[in-house]
């Protein structure tokens, strides 16, 4: 049942299938309609579903994100697309102060089943206002679920449970993943609570998510050439974190390196590291390592952008350091 598709088309197919299955589902955002989506995810959709359900919005991130939240409160199932995580900061008020709080603030009377898709990450030389990885800012917020599908399969399969979830779900799509082609089985399902072990290993756990997954897998390949068996965990659900999978892996390998495109200070990697400390300290044979982005706004020139981000060689070095090799 599987076919080869791009990540971009997998997301697009998931949206189309959801809109076909449920009249309440619609997508709204800047340039999702006539333009076809900044990353072409919604290309052709407006012709098939009309401009009510593929709704172009003005440049009003707070306004249209809040409108999506309101529409969810009013019984619709909106998918709000925000072009880039940097722009999502203009909508943060609505996401944090409205979407994430209403259930609690109303004593459980109200819930907001909105899905917000945000592209994230660096690698396209878009410089310091279009390249950041702020997933952890959202993963900090109780009341939200935060997803970072890294594979074509997850890009397709995670949207359905996200839309079925009664609470707000934020989905991060790393911009370097849109062009990747992989197998997709549309029938396979996924839950919104578990991390995935992408490669089995026994010497060290490499824990990552989103755009860093493929770099981490490549590092694991190279480590294997040196006789090091690395396990690779794709967190894919950033809130709530799947502690059990993380601790099980570390319990087995006794060493961990976390690869996270966010800035190191206050990063998701720091959170995962703390959880390993709290839940797996006595099984560790080495300090937990972190490979994160350098503490700098992402620079424009290719060589500096590359230098700012986690790369395969840095992952290998961090793994070897943990192994004392």
């Amino acid at each position, binding site marked *: 049942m599987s076919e080869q598709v791009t990540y971009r088309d997998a997301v697009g197919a998931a949206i189309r299938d959801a809109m076909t299955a449920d009249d*309440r589902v*619609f997508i709204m955002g800047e340039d999702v309609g006539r333009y076809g989506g900044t990353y072409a995810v919604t290309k052709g959709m407006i012709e098939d579903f009309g401009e*009510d359900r593929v709704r172009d*919005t*003005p440049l*009003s991130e*707070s*306004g*249209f*994100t*809040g*409108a*999506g*939240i*309101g*529409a*969810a*409160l*009013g*019984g*619709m199932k*909106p998918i709000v697309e925000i072009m880039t995580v940097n722009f999502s900061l203009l909508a943060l*008020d*609505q996401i944090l*102060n*409205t979407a994430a709080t*209403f*259930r*609690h*603030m*109303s*004593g*459980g*009377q*109200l*819930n907001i089943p909105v899905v917000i898709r945000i592209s994230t990450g660096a690698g396209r030389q878009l410089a310091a206002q279009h390249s950041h990885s702020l997933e952890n800012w959202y993963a900090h917020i*109780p*009341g939200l*679920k935060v997803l970072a599908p890294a594979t074509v399969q997850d890009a397709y399969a995670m949207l359905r449970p996200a839309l079925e*979830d*009664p*609470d707000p779900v934020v989905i991060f799509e790393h911009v370097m993943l849109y062009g990747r082609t992989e197998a997709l089985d549309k029938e396979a399902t996924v839950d919104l609570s578990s991390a995935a072990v992408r490669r089995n290993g026994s010497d060290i756990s490499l824990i990552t998510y989103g755009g860093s997954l493929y770099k981490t897998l490549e590092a694991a390949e190279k480590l294997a050439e040196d006789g090091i068996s690395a396990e690779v965990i794709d967190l894919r659900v950033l809130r709530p974190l799947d502690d059990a999978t993380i601790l099980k892996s570390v319990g087995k390998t006794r060493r961990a390196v976390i690869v996270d495109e966010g800035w190191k200070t206050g990063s998701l990697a720091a959170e995962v590291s703390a959880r390993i400390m709290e839940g797996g300290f006595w099984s560790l044979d080495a300090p937990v390592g972190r490979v994160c982005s350098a503490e700098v706004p992402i620079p424009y020139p290719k060589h500096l952008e590359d230098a700012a981000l986690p790369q395969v060689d840095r992952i290998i070095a961090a793994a070897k350091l943990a192994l004392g090799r």
Partner: protein
Amino acid sequence: MSAKDKDLRPHLTRDHCLDLMRNMLRIRRFEEKAAELYTQEKIRGFLHLYIGEEAVATGVMQTLTPEDAIVATYREHGHALVRGVPMTGVMAEMYGKSGGVSKGRGGSMHIFSAEHRFYGGNAIVGGGLPLAVGLALADKMQNRPNVTVCFFGEGAAAEGEFHESLNLAALWQLPVLFVCENNLYAMGTALARSESETDIHAKAASYKITSEAVDGMNVVDVEAAARRAVAAVRDGKGPYFLECRTYRFRAHSMFDPQLYRSKDEVTEWEEKGPIRRFSDWVTKSGLLHADDIEAIEADIAKEVEDAVAFAEASPWEEVETLLEDVGAAS
């Protein structure tokens, strides 16, 4: 005046006048009690009183059906009460007790009632406007004939969310009634000290939204304007904007020493207060008698007393429930 316009005028029957009077007085007496309870430390945190502005919520709310939606601010006790949210649940919410409408989780600033389509209780200035736009969008997309009414202060007009929301509502021709409660001050900042254009309703007009300014101290005028507005919105004519010119008699919140305005100014406005004005008019015109008003006062005194008793008797939420209602129970 056409037959249709005549239909839209408030029908000032004796019963209707009793109702308007009762609604305004319920807010006034409830909030006077709340202020007293605040000094006794029964109510804590922020408490924003609506005293002086009662004609706005009362007048606007006359025109709504139970299916219509309401979005309000942190100064929303009055709106909740007129909407029919029980006074007991509102009072207990202000106490932070489990019998509160939101199980005490919200307090004075966050009154919600799903049953009454009362969506807060929003304490981010301007934050309720996008939400109202979305509720209206959902109604429009699902072909429901509902109107969403969004109340906010004139301070919100300086926020980006105000402008984004007005534009979206007009662009998509959504069934929203925006009601600006212009009480001339945002905390201590007078309108002219924060806006280059102080005529708020003109801003709405610039988005091609039908817009009018009304005397917010006159409940009949507010109701008349709201009837026109809601009829137009329900008719599919897109959003409508009412600027109700009013005044808050009390401090912004209980922490406000009111350094920014004079006592004389407040007294002047109190003299044209909405309750005083309406009761003078209905008694002079013979629609109501002094003993009608006394009877209402007696009913309300009892209702307020019952609400306080309810809140006092209501238990606190168990600390074990702390993490409840953050997400769906899994």
